[in-house]
């Protein structure tokens, strides 16, 4: 049900402002029997998701009540709703939070619907496995994703640089290229953004060394020396002038348009593969993706679910909710609209169907994931509770090093010990 007021109706509502009937009449919008769907997004995703919702309504005759928020507001909203036991029926979930919500009994186990409402026969098993918490499925991946180094192709081409095979390159190779070209770059442009604050980048670093951020038991999975080495590497990058000064880098609060790449201050940037389209929209030059260079003997990267669809434990009509989820994941027409905005789908037939219609940039994503898929290590164990806090703490920890406020080893030690304490507090 879309409600738009004509000008006259609008005036009428204002005029009737004194009558209580107008109040209750307008306020009681919430449709009975509608499936509530919530996601975080951006205007592009909102447009596509809404179109699918409309399609679903016309096809099935059932009603869906959609809600959308910006990422920052989304989790506050969701937490409050959870506290009030009024979570929406179908919830777009993040890999980080699915464990928190599932283990605190906010999400419904989907196993009973798989095979009936949820038709996942064609779906990639590895991707499905990523939504499993403690042996039960709590989320269906909406698409695969991996980390990447995105780079400004136009600039590198202009300098005549060709990158080596990224499935086997190392950080040393990468730094060497940087040192080679850093003086040829335009004024104000650096070889790369500084990724010191990025927990996923730290993760690839320690995974390269055969470790991980967390152990399956929920303890810290790497050693303090790994962190020191990581900080030292990025401090070296900053000191060598390969990455921007700390204050310039710190202007990036995590929004894509503030990234060094979008502001033309960096050739290389860290990016999740599904964000390539959005980043390309912000940059005039052509950009492309390569795998992250390894700092150790092991493959640091892994295929991760970009986001999940989950179902609330309190959903009134679970079957109806499962139907809607299924529509998003398996309906061909729906996926013609969604394409790979949320990542590359794990449904083989859908993937085949949509690939030809993709733009050049979108094709790059598919190609990239094809390469990554063959050179990854397995999905890491689920992050423990309070992992989010540790993620956020990495930023001030690294920045205190970058700004030279604290001795590097002291900062690393501090962060490491605080992380352990955070996990204990959970």
């Amino acid at each position, binding site marked *: 049900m879309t409600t738009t007021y004509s000008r006259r109706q609008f005036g009428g509502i204002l005029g009737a402002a004194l009558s209580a009937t107008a109040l209750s009449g307008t306020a009681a919008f919430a449709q009975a029997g509608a499936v509530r769907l919530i996601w975080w997004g951006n205007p592009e995703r909102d447009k596509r998701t809404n179109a699918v919702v409309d399609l679903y309504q016309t096809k099935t005759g059932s009603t869906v009540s959609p809600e959308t928020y910006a990422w920052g507001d989304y989790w506050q909203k969701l937490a409050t709703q959870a506290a009030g036991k009024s979570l929406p029926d179908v919830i777009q979930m993040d890999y980080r939070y699915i464990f928190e919500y599932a283990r605190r009994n906010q999400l419904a186990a989907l196993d009973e619907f798989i095979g009936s409402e949820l038709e996942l026969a064609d779906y990639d098993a590895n991707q499905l496995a990523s939504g499993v918490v403690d042996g039960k499925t709590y989320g269906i991946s909406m698409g695969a994703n991996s980390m990447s180094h995105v780079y400004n192709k136009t600039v590198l081409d202009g300098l005549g640089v060709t990158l080596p095979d990224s499935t086997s390159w190392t950080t040393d190779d990468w730094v060497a290229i940087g040192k080679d070209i850093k003086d040829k770059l335009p004024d104000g442009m650096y070889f790369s953004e500084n990724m010191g604050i990025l927990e996923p980048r730290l993760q690839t670093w320690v995974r390269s060394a055969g470790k991980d951020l967390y152990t399956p038991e929920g303890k810290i999975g790497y050693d303090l020396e790994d962190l020191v080495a990581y900080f030292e590497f990025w401090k070296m990058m900053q000191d060598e002038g390969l990455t921007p000064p700390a204050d310039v880098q710190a202007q990036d609060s995590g929004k894509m348009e503030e990234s060094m790449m979008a502001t033309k201050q960096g050739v290389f940037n860290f990016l999740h593969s599904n964000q390539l389209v959005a980043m390309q929209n912000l940059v005039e030059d052509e950009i492309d993706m390569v795998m992250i260079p390894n700092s150790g003997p092991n493959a640091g990267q892994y295929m991760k679910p970009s986001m999940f669809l989950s179902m609330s434990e309190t959903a009134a009509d679970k079957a109806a909710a499962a139907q809607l989820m299924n529509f998003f994941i398996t309906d061909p027409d729906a996926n013609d609209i969604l394409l790979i905005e949320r990542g590359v789908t794990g449904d083989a037939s859908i993937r085949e169907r949509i690939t030809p219609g993709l733009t050049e940039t979108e094709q790059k994503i598919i190609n990239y994931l094809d390469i990554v898929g063959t050179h990854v290590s397995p999905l890491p164990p689920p992050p423990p509770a309070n992992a*989010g806090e540790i993620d956020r703490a990495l930023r001030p920890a690294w920045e205190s090093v970058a*700004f030279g406020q604290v001795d590097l080893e002291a900062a690393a030690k501090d962060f490491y010990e605080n992380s352990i304490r955070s996990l204990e507090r959970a």
Partner: protein
Amino acid sequence: MFLLPWLIGFFGLTLGPTLASLYLSFTDYDLLTSPRWSGLENYEYAFFHDRRLGNALSVTFTYVLWSVPLKLTVALLLAMVLDRSVRGVAFYRATFYLPSLLGASVAIAVLWRQIFGAQGLVNQMLFLLTGMKGPAWVAHPDYALTTLIVLAIWQFGSPMIIFLAGLRQVPQDLYEAASMDGASGWRQFRKITLPLLAPVIFFNLVFQTIEAFKAFTQAYIVSGGQGGPVDSTLFYSLYLYEEAFANFRMGYASALAWLLLVIIAIFTAIAFATSKYWVYYEDEGR
């Protein structure tokens, strides 16, 4: 009977939830599962173990102690200039007031990041005037808080208008008498304007201090919601928010909220306690 709506509202919507939060401050509550009683654990952690809390307090105090006096000074200065100029008062008054009306808007905060960015307006001006290249103010731990203080000062309109109204009440013949006595402008300000304006200054001081302690939106948006860089803009309210909704520690956040309440109350009490020494009311008593 006249109080009935307020009583319902106060007990039902304010006191009830406030007491609920007092209860929560003694629990371990993650929003998703039921609260679990944990006694004084939250307070113990806050007092003895939480280093970020110490930082948040110092950021907040720095902000309050700088932004409030500066904002009030600017407000008073411009109010005095406006009080004396004849033409275009309405225009200037409106212009100065507008930002404090629009201040909390999302767009303003976005704008602020831009103005104080590495290539922002401020640095362009700086380069034009001095040839120096300024840092990225919003993103530098030494300056980020300063930009927020500047943002607070930018919204000096509301206290300015209160000062202006206060100035209009100062009888003109006092100044004339002082001029006859040969008092200089500065002396007139010290001996007439300030004392007679004391109640107004007091009002502004108390309200602005409370507001500054509670400041959230600007910091939330300007710092990208993280209180960065290096926690240099981690306001108390921001930290509280993060603990509650990002780290799922509503119990601890409630304890933090109660500490903040006590801090604000102490400040207000100090202001009121000292007020009798420097605030002069024309009609003492009722």
